[in-house]
């Protein structure tokens, strides 16, 4: 076979090979300095390549980034993360059982959405990707609403028009999720620009995967954020994999994703995405920076996509089977749990009881949600809804087609 001079990024471990995370550059917990919130971008370059960590291996919170959250706050964080995981597991099973058509889990990435949401204000506008269900849960969107969306049923807030997991909540300040990747990034910047134009204190935050950062939209977002110093937090969730493609193919081999921030004149912070405390702390830092006129921050959350890309994907075809178990940054739920236990604020018994309580919450919510219909059983959405909301007022061609569709249905 002919070799070429073209460089081709290597995935560290393919099926049949031993997991290998030696490529990952880590900093010890507590080792990274915490600059002043108003620090100039040029003075904080190392933040974009080091790794902010607070929880050490023993489960203690160390160093200058320790957000000193009280135990009650940490327990809420643990609860949201555990609920996100149980919800995911249950919805995955429901997809496998044919109850819903498609699902995307966030297994192993729960701290990203939950800690970041908790570090922001309820009125801040969030522009999620399709793997941020923790944002919906931490924002308090009822599980039944989420499930009705997954089921495309009569209480689906999207009225049956979106793939499962493409939630939105205007009341929850959670923007409509797109199945096209990265599109939300420049939109978040625009929202933040509008907040600044209107003289409001709210900020916008958006999330995408490191794979999606290859899209031009990512770069538009950074440029507009930099030019207008928009109050926005742009988050790259580096979960190492974009379906089968390793993060090296998104440009992660030579330089961190956070380091793209300083290239545009934006503060860049690289953080341990499985460390609840560190994620909370850097988000709080970025939020304060944005609210005090310091402009945008690009945060890279280093984490691992422990599950398949979606229910349509089979990662055993392209990566080492037990990769996730060897991920050097551990599991976000286990790590926060251990920390709380060390503080004397949690126990295995309480954890077990919480888990059982959340299991029942998810099960009860599902029972309620399916009562509003599934794609196969129960009440059905009115098919006329297909023609609404294309425009504010339904034009003549759609009125005619709606009539044709009704005739088609009655002819079947």
């Amino acid at each position, binding site marked *: 076979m002919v070799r070429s001079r073209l460089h081709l990024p290597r*995935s560290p471990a393919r099926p049949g090979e031993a997991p290998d995370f030696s490529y990952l550059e880590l900093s010890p917990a507590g080792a990274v300095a915490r600059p002043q919130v108003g620090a100039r971008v040029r003075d904080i370059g190392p933040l974009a390549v080091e790794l902010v960590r607070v929880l050490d291996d023993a489960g203690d919170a160390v160093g200058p980034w320790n957000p000193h959250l009280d135990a009650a706050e940490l327990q809420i964080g643990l609860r949201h993360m555990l609920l996100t995981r149980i919800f995911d597991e249950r919805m995955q099973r429901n997809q496998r059982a044919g109850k819903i058509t498609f699902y995307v889990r966030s297994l192993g990435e729960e701290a990203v959405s939950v800690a970041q949401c908790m570090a922001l204000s309820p009125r801040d506008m969030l522009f999620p990707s399709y793997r941020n269900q923790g944002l919906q849960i931490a924002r308090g969107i009822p599980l039944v609403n989420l499930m009705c969306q997954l089921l495309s049923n009569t209480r689906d807030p999207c*009225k049956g028009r979106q793939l499962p997991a493409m939630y939105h909540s205007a009341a929850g300040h959670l923007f409509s999720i797109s199945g096209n990747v990265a599109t939300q990034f420049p939109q978040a910047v625009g929202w933040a620009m509008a907040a600044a134009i209107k003289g409001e204190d709210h900020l916008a935050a958006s999330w995408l995967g490191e794979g999606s950062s*290859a899209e*031009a939209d990512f770069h538009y977002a950074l440029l507009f954020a930099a030019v207008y110093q928009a109050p926005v937090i742009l988050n790259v969730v580096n979960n190492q994999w974009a379906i089968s493609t390793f993060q090296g193919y998104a440009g992660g081999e030579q330089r961190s994703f956070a380091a793209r921030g300083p290239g545009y004149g934006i503060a860049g912070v690289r953080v341990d995405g499985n460390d609840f405390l560190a994620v909370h702390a850097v988000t709080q830092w970025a939020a304060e920076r944005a609210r005090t006129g310091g402009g945008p921050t690009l945060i890279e959350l280093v984490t691992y996509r422990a599950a398949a890309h979606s229910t349509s994907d089979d990662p055993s075809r392209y990566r080492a089977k037990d990769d996730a178990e060897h991920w050097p940054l551990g599991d976000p739920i286990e790590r926060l749990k251990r920390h709380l236990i060390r503080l004397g604020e949690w126990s295995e018994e309480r954890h077990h009881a919480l888990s059982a309580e959340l299991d029942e919450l998810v099960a009860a919510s599902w029972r309620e949600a399916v009562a509003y219909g599934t794609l196969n059983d129960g009440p059905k959405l009115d098919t006329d809804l*297909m023609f609404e909301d294309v425009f504010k007022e339904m034009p003549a061609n759609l009125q005619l087609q709606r009539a044709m569709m009704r005739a088609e249905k009655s*002819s079947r």
Partner: protein
Amino acid sequence: MAQMNMVQALNSAMDIMLGRDPSVVLMGEDIGYFGGVFRTTEGLQRKYGEHRVLDTPIAEGGIVGAAIGMAVNGLRPVAEIQFADYIYPGFDQIVSELARLRYRSAGDFTAPVTIRTPCGGGIRGGQTHSQSPEAMFTHVSGLKVVMPSNPHDAKGLLITAIEDDDPVIFFEPKRLYNGPFDGDPNKPAVPWSTHPKGEVPEGHYTVPLGRADIVRAGAQLSIITYGTMVYVAQAAAAALELDAEIIDLRSLVPLDVDAICSSVKKTGRCVVAHEATRLSGFGAEIAAIVQEECFWHLEAPIQRAAGWDTPYPHAFEWEYFPGQARLAAAIRAAMEPA
């Protein structure tokens, strides 16, 4: 001859072209090690090497732009856009650059790029995995636009597209990957192994662009269609017990105007069917041509059966999809007045 489904036939086309022509390279998201989300490029990176079957970043504009540059420098790239619904970030590179490079440089620079992309619905893909945007590309001067409806044509057309010195947008109706589909989701799936068009020569062969396939000869009515709708049209006409002539266009640009017009001149009645939305769909172009060329032969207004003018809704997939009922209504209208 071998039995192949459409995925295998497309794989075979690329395998043959990689083997015959060292300038052919494949590129796209997840197409290399993984073999593509629909398995269309399975095994090709292992066989031809990582420098000829390239995984790319998730950047459709980058994929198309880089493919143009590679083509200008002597390669013959076959780029995959994972879903047609994801092609829009590459639209500027396709429309403003790929399509016009030959024209604006007076033929001094050309880019023989083939862009393969799965299209169409019927797989519960919702609005971001179901679109049929072919008309957006037929509207652009300088692009050839192809959509096969079966494994035999898929392989022959893809080889032709790769060998073509002009850019080709090659749409693959993903609902047809594993078998023909007559629009009824409640029927058991039919595999290609039971269909004559699942018989595919193993070696190199071509199906020319711009030549339609008369799937069924008939006298009473012409149904002009392509892609998924070929089988829906056959089923709808059969259910109405009509002697319909069914024409599978296979390529939209270039278009086999002769096949369309000789059929309509013979039958005097015309239905155009496609899965894409009706408004400004390719059916409008066909209807215009038929009107211009066959007006005095027409016995009834030309009818269109198409997707509704809405985004593709997840919950209402089968109310949206132009199935047999929609075809039947169009056929009945085209058959009046008797």
